[in-house]
C-alpha cells in the first residue's frame, strides 16, 4: 500500500503543472543510527526455556528476553526525491539500506569455567554463545515524509517533518564466529529468534535545518504494526512455550542524517515560459 502511495504522490508532484514555485530535488543522504531499541516480549520464568539434552543438562533461559540495545555509526546510503512547494512545504520519498548487529541475551545454567573447558579448551574463541547470541540484521527501506521549512528569507532554515517508513528484512544471521563449535545448539536458538516480519511499517518524525542544498536532521522511527510474525500468539495462544513463540515487541531507532541535493529541477520555470 505504501508503495502505491509513494508512486502516486511522486507522479502527481512531477507531472503537475498548475503550481507556482516548485522544485524537485534528487539527492543523496547518509544517516547513522546512534540508538536502536529492539524490545522483546516478556515471558514467565518457564515460558522461554531451552532444556538441551547434552552432558551438562544445559538450560538456556531468556527470562522474557532482555531488551537488546544497539547502535550503528555506519553511514548508511539513502537516495531521495524531494519536492518543494512555495518554499515552505516539502514532500520527500526515500530509498535506503541499513544494517547493524545486536545481541539476544539469556542465562546459561552451566558454570562458565565448565562451559569453556568443554567447548573452548585452548581459549581461542569468543564465548561461543554462552549467554548471548549475536544477530546481524540487514534491511532496505523506503519512506515518505512531509515537512515544513521555516524562515523563508534566511539561508539557514529549520524544518520539521513526519511520515511513514517501510522496512524490508533482507538478511538476519547469527554472528560468524558461532559457525562451528556450537552450531547445533546455536542454530536451534537462532531459528526460534527468526520471527521478525519481512515487512514492517513505521512512522517517523524529526527536525533539522537546511542550508542551501545541504540538510541535517534528527528523527525518531517507531513501528506502528506488529514486528513479529507470531505477535498475535503472545496475547491469544494458551501455550506458546514450545512453538511459534513471538520475540520482537518493538523496533525503534534514533537516526541522524545529512543530505545533499545533487540534481534540482525547477518545475515552475517551464510553466512560466508558457
Amino acid at each position, binding site marked *: 500500500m505504501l508503495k502505491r502511495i509513494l508512486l502516486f504522490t511522486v507522479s502527481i508532484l512531477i507531472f503537475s503543472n498548475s503550481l507556482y514555485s516548485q522544485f524537485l530535488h534528487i539527492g543523496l543522504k547518509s544517516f547513522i543510527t546512534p540508538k536502536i531499541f529492539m524490545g522483546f516480549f516478556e515471558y514467565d520464568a518457564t515460558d522461554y526455556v531451552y532444556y538441551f539434552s547434552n552432558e551438562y543438562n544445559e538450560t538456556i533461559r531468556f527470562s522474557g528476553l532482555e531488551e537488546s540495545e544497539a547502535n550503528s555509526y555506519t553511514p548508511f546510503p539513502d537516495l531521495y526525491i524531494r519536492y518543494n512547494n512555495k518554499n515552505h512545504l516539502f514532500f520527500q520519498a526515500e530509498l535506503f539500506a541499513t544494517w547493524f548487529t545486536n545481541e539476544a541475551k539469556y542465562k546459561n545454567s552451566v558454570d562458565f569455567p565448565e562451559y569453556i573447558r568443554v567447548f573452548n579448551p585452548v581459549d581461542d574463541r569468543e564465548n561461543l554463545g554462552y549467554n548471548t547470541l549475536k544477530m546481524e540484521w540487514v534491511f532496505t527501506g*523506503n519512506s515518505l515524509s512531509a515537512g515544513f521549512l521555516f524562515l523563508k528569507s534566511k539561508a539557514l532554515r529549520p524544518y520539521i517533518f513526519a511520515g511513514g517508513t517501510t522496512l524490508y528484512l533482507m538478511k538476519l544471521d547469527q554472528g560468524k564466529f558461532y559457525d562451528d563449535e556450537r552450531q547445533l545448539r546455536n542454530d536451534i536458538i537462532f531459528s526460534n529468534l527468526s520471527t521478525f516480519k519481512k515487512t514492517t511499517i513505521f512512522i517517523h518524525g524529526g527536525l533539522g535545518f537546511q542550508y542551501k542544498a545541504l540538510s541535517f536532521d534528527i528523527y525518531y522511527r517507531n513501528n506502528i504494526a506488529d514486528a513479529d510474525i507470531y505477535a498475535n500468539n503472545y496475547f491469544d495462544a494458551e501455550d506458546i512455550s514450545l512453538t511459534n513463540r513471538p520475540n520482537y515487541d518493538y523496533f525503534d531507532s534514533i537516526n541522524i542524517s545529512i543530505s545533499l541535493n545533487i540534481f534540482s529541477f525547477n518545475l515552475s*520555470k517551464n510553466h512560466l515560459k508558457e
Partner: protein
Amino acid sequence: MKIIKHNTYSKYLILLIILILTISACYQYPELDDIQYEDYRRIIGPEGGIINFYKNYENDSIKDVLVKMEFPEDALDDFIVFNMYEFFDEPTHHELDNMSLEQYSYFLYFVPFYESDGYNEHSQGDTNQHISINFNLPVTVTYNFSKYEYYVEEINNIDIAKLYRIKIPAENEWEMNNVWIRWNLQGYPDGYSDIDLIYLITGKWTESISWGTGELSLSNWEEVTEYTYNNIDQTVVFDINNTDYMYVMAYFMEI
C-alpha cells in the same frame, strides 16, 4: 548544485525504485535441515517420545548419543524435565576394586523436575531433596556405557558384567537425612551430593544404617534381572519405573 531543466530522468528513477522494492521482498527465513529442538530437548510430557542425551565434544555438531530414554504415551502425567548424570569418583572406584568389584560404567542416574515448578534458580545455600516420580508405564533406557573412560578393552570379562542398581532414597523415605540436590554457581541443579552418592555406593549409608556410619559393603547393590546387553556397540537396554535408582555395569569377581 546543478540545475537541470528537464525531468526525464525522474521517470527512470521511479522505475528503478519500484524494481528495487520488488527485489527487496526476497528474504527467506532460515530453516534447520539437520536437527530440531524436539530432537535435542530433555523435557517430555504425556504424549511420550524420546530423549537423547548427547555427549559433549568441542564441536557439538557430532551427534553421539550417550543415553536414550523412550517414553510411551501416558507414561507421564505432566511435563517433566530430566537431567542425566554420570557419576564417577576415583577413590570409590578403587574401594570397589578392593571389594572384588570391577566397575565398567559410570553410575547413571536421572534427576527429574516438574516443568511447572519452574526449574528455578537457587542459591548454593539452598537444599532440595530427591523428588521421586513414578511412571505410569515403564520407560526404556539405552545406555551406551562404552564411553566410560576407565573401561579397559583388554579385559575380556566385560561380556559377563552385569547391570546393577542402587537405591536413591527420596524425601523421608529412609530417615530425615536424604539425598540432596547440589546447585552450581549459576543456581541450577548439578546432580546429587557426591558424598551422598558415595555413601550409597559403598554401603556407608543404608536403609538400616545412619548416614555415613556403616562399613564398606555392597548391601545397597541390587542386580537387575531384566535387561539386554549389546556387545557390538556396548549398550545396555533396560526399563525403569521411576528415577529412584542409579545404574552401573559391573562385574563381581567371586573369590
